[in-house]
């Protein structure tokens, strides 16, 4: 812009601010810091912040701000040029014990023991796909940072580390090709999920029966784990304070809620068919959001002999943030019962949930995500937010902005009629076959 500027950042984000400025080419940017947090503070408290010192340097904050705009630049601050950044040599040689420590200490792992990606194991993994090991297949960004690129071989190394078999490799390449990381830099501790559809579910022995979301099959366990290890390595995600800021963190990041759809027991079209793929195609679909809750906690006529799962699900979703989507994870018993109640397609259920999961405008405006993400869009005229923000506080509006916020997947072993519900948005569906 060519205009001197000073960003004010709260001290909790010191490392993030300095590293982000550096990665974007201004490593000596004059950043000034306030105490943390700013959110929720009174004007009197904020005046103390402004009149007080920068908590990082101890110098008076506003003097730093004024100096930041007026003190002449140093030679280093005027520098131009290209800086290349190395991530080390292509291979490492040491004892197995030392390499385990080395990978752990350098943040390459999820802090569980790994399978060391020896040349032999990586070569074996590469045989799981016809794609050339040196093919650059994607870009992945850790939050707002510039994205990193990666090859088939680099994906293979993470796949080995997670304990994947070579036949799983096309799924990991499909995920990597999207550039979507399962670790996101937000303070919100996001969770991620994937749905697997197609014949590959049986070929690779995914579990979509009893305990479908649990640790009961190698494919479910290691492919989910690999996504997080890939996110750390391919896109440099998951560095606390730098590329990861989730305040509490999310345990689902270890495995990313791998859902192989129980297509055979479902009364509805499989998820990938809804997205335009053929039933015989193998597809992985990715989701992002905040987490999963069990349906047993929901209200909605569950005490009688004919549970109303639509009402139960609506009750659950009414506690979610509409900013993220609503994913129904239905045991086949639930899905079959819903069909008997008239929902002969997933779309009919979605339509009912969209229309019957509501909130008042007052409640909507009071939500964190509404203020942070949707109010700014309302000011820009983006619908439905622009209309919603003009309505009176007691007006009733949908809890989610559109019917497409909802998705439905069927999985589980039919030991009981329990749904689960995820506050997660659909991202993308990609072919696995393309990566075989």
């Amino acid at each position, binding site marked *: 812009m060519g205009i*001197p500027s*000073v*960003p*004010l950042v*709260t001290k909790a*984000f010191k*490392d993030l601010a*300095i*590293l982000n400025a*550096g990665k974007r080419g201004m*490593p*000596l940017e*004059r950043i000034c810091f*306030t105490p943390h947090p*700013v*959110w*929720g*503070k009174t004007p009197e408290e*904020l*005046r103390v912040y*402004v009149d007080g010192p920068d908590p990082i340097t101890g110098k008076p904050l506003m003097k730093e*701000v*004024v100096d930041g*705009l007026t003190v002449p*630049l140093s*030679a*280093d*601050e005027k520098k131009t*040029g*290209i*800086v*290349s*950044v*190395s*991530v080390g040599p292509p*291979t*490492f040689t*040491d*004892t*197995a014990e030392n390499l385990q*420590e*080395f990978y752990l200490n*350098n943040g390459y792992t999820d802090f569980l023991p790994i399978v*060391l*990606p020896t040349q032999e194991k*990586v070569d074996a993994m590469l045989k799981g796909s016809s794609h050339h090991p040196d093919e650059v297949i994607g870009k992945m960004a850790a939050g707002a940072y510039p994205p990193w*690129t*990666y*090859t088939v*071989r*680099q994906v293979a190394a*993470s796949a*080995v580390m997670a304990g994947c078999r070579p036949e799983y490799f096309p799924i990991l390449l499909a995920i990597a090709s999207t550039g979507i990381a399962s670790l996101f830099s937000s303070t919100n501790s996001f969770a991620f999920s994937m749905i697997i559809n197609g014949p590959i579910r049986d070929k690779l022995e995914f579990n979509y029966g009893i305990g479908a979301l649990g640790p009961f099959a190698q494919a479910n366990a290691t492919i989910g784990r690999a996504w997080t290890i890939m996110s750390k*390595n*391919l*896109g*440099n995600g998951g560095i606390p304070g730098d590329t990861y800021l989730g305040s509490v963190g999310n345990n689902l990041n270890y495995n990313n809620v791998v859902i192989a759809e129980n297509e055979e027991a479902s009364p509805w079209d499989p998820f990938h068919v809804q997205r335009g793929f053929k039933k015989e195609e193998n597809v992985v679909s990715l989701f992002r959001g905040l987490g999963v809750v069990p349906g047993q906690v929901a209200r909605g006529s569950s005490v009688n002999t004919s549970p109303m799962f639509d009402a139960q699900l609506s009750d659950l979703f009414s506690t979610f943030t509409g900013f993220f989507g609503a994913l129904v994870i239905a045991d086949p018993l639930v899905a079959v019962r819903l069909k008997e109640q008239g929902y002969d397609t997933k779309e009919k259920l979605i339509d009912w949930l969209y229309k019957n999961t509501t909130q008042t405008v007052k409640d909507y405006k009071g939500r964190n995500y509404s203020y*942070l993400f949707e109010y700014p*869009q309302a000011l*820009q005229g983006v619908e439905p937010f622009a209309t919603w923000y003009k309505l009176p506080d007691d007006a009733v509006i949908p809890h989610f902005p559109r019917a497409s916020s909802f998705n439905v997947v069927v999985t589980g072993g039919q030991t009981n009629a329990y749904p689960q519900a995820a506050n997660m948005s659909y991202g993308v569906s990609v072919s696995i076959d393309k990566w075989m």
Partner: protein
Amino acid sequence: MNRRKLLSLLGMSPVLLTGNPAQAGQTKHAAAPAADPGAVKITTVNPKGTPPSIQLIPMAPRLDSLDGKTVYLVDTGFHGSDALLHQVELWFNRNMPSVTLVFKRKAGPYAQDDPPLWKEIKEKGNAVIMATGH
């Protein structure tokens, strides 16, 4: 961690502090522990992707002083940013009344770019203070 150590994680600070961008290839990797000389060694693949190179951007020239200048206070939209910037505004009113202040909320959610605002600031402003609360 200080700025020098932080930037060394990028392989940057030695370059910037010694003035040789062409030799910036630094690695952040901690050395592996010393191995037992008799132990069997194996070779493993580095799993890291490839980071982009960094184009250094020279900072904008600074002002001689803020007296009589126009400073834009830009609110990114994070919770509390507006309230914090209001206190900054009051500080200027008390301590540097010759400064003209223009308060703007950046358009869109916090991560969305706002080229019209940057254009306005370039045309009408002399300096920017941007606040990202939380």
